């Protein structure tokens, strides 16, 4: 089957959990990981007689997002009720915004792998409440589901894009960009594995060159970029195959299971999607004053673009390094501490993006949960930069810090890992190794130029072995070349 005659149209709806201490309409805590239903109060449980009171911080965070994407701010916004029955929503409706959202039209620029940029228009972003969680598995009796309402009422902004993306790469670049923005301005912790950001992907296809939109499907609740890519690729292929086989795409909601790599239809929109919205009588219009908007604008934290530019300017990072570190708020903060402590920003950047990031990835940890603190990494980088330890020793020290054995200096001391950089001592070592390996030396002298270069490694190995790995390899290399040359 060929897909080349088709083009894809993608729009995203992104749910961002706001980093408030309490729920959007109640004073119950939003801390992650609490025991089930211990953070669900009478308001969250929709007990009769309760009334919602809007969280000021949630409103401010939403406005900050609007300012960050240069959007119109809804100075007067209002809440609606979206009615549906599901046990994780005790009220029987979700309090959300429809007619007058708090954030209007805006723009997000994405950068693509080929270096080009593309503008993705934001249709609007609105405030709403999260639902609880249904647990279907576990030890419950047959035929029941367990409901945890700790998450019910957690403030969200739902960011709705225009259908401006045309492939998975663009959709993921957009998702990453939003992640970068909301974490940079501190309105979301960005912990995707905990559901802090969740993506609904609207996909349709149409014959290349046509302008009418095809029927779209919505794949809901993707919480990783990888799943997003897989879900989009599969859905595009499914739709094209379907149409080419003479079928019709149905407007429906789909779920993608990242473990089994299978998507399935959740419900057909036409039968269920009648939410009977109406203005929420419990909540009055929300007014955000010009003074508040200006104050939030003045105090808006550094945005990713500005930070990347500063990293190039202030630390001399390459464009690439500045983009990688500067787009991730947590990584950027970590790097700045490590750079200050080590007094060697470039090396600190290499270690942050290299060894540390790889290790965190392999353990599926976010940088904020890193067992190696930024100060500790900075301390390690400082010892590499001043030649106290070699790169190889540094990896050993890094592992030890990771394992909780203390700071770089403590570990270097405890393990006797000092790198020998004293020229006199190194010369003595080289001379000794040459003297005890006469056959190798003869072989070296009798070889031609190109072969000699390869044979250098053999001597290096012997010397590093003799020094128990503590000799400074760059210096040994120099001294060795010089001593061998003298023999020619």
């Amino acid at each position, binding site marked *: 089957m060929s897909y080349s005659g088709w083009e894809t149209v993608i729009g995203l709806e992104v749910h961002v959990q706001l980093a*408030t*201490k*309490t729920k959007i309409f*109640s*004073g*119950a*805590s939003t801390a992650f990981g609490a*025991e*089930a*239903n*211990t*953070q*669900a*109060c*009478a308001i969250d*449980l929709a*007990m009769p007689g309760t009334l919602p*009171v*809007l*969280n*000021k*911080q*949630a*409103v401010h965070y939403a406005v900050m997002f609007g300012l960050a994407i240069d959007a119109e701010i809804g100075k*007067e916004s*209002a809440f609606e009720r979206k*009615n*549906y*029955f*599901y*046990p994780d929503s005790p009220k029987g409706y979700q309090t959300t915004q429809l*007619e*007058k959202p708090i954030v209007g039209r805006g723009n997000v620029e994405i950068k693509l792998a080929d270096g080009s940029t593309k503008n993705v228009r934001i249709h609007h972003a609105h405030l709403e409440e999260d639902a609880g969680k*249904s*647990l*279907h598995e576990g*030890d*419950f*009796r047959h*035929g*029941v*589901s*367990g*409901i*945890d*309402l700790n998450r019910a009422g957690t403030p969200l902004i739902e960011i709705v894009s225009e259908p401006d993306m045309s492939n998975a790469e663009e959709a993921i670049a957009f998702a990453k960009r939003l992640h970068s923005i909301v974490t940079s301005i501190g309105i979301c912790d960005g912990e995707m594995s905990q559901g802090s950001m969740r993506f609904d992907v609207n996909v349709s296809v149409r014959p290349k060159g046509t302008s009418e939109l095809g029927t779209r499907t919505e794949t809901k609740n993707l919480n990783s970029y990888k799943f997003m890519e897989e879900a989009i690729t599969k859905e595009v292929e499914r739709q094209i195959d379907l149409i080419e086989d003479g079928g019709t795409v149905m407007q429906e909601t789909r*779920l993608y299971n990242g473990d089994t790599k299978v998507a399935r239809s*959740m*419900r057909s929109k036409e039968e269920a999607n*009648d939410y*009977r919205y109406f*203005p929420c*009588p419990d*909540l*009055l*219009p*929300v*007014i955000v004053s010009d003074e508040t908007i200006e104050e939030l604008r003045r105090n808006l934290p550094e945005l990713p673009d500005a930070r990347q530019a500063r990293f190039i300017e202030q630390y001399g990072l390459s464009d690439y390094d500045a983009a990688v570190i500067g787009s991730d708020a947590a990584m950027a903060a970590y790097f700045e501490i490590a750079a200050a402590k080590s007094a060697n920003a470039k090396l600190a950047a290499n270690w942050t993006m290299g060894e540390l990031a790889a290790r965190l990835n392999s353990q599926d940890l976010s940088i904020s949960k890193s067992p190696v603190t930024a100060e500790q990494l900075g301390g390690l980088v400082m010892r590499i930069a001043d030649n106290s330890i070699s790169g190889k020793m540094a990896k050993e020290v890094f592992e030890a810090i990771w394992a909780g054995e203390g700071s770089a200096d403590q570990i270097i001391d405890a393990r006797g890992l000092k790198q020998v950089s004293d020229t006199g001592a190194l010369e003595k070592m080289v001379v000794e190794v040459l003297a005890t390996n006469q056959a190798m030396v003869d072989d070296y002298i009798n070889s031609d130029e190109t072969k000699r270069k390869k044979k250098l490694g053999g001597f290096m190995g012997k010397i590093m072995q003799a020094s128990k790995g503590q000799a400074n390899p760059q210096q040994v290399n120099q001294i060795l070349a010089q001593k061998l040359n003298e023999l020619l």
Partner: protein
Amino acid sequence: MSIERQEIEKLATLSRIAIGEDTITEVSQRLSSVLELVDQLQAVNTDGVEAMSHPMKATQRLREDEVSEINQREAFQAIAPDTEEGLFLVPKVIE
């Protein structure tokens, strides 16, 4: 504007309300009269009148973001039909 039997049935399903065969005609008539009122309202010329999101001339008060609720799970679950390990139990729901 009158409301069809089919729409009544759909609304009943969406609202999880059982409407008996004997009342369906009455419900239909009542809802139709509500819709007639809406028709009347919609016939009014509202050019230049800004839509209101709330009938009261007041604005929403905002609450400081401070935890003010304590854990009352035991009290709430004491009046729940069924619970286990801190969870509320409901008939199995899988879409």
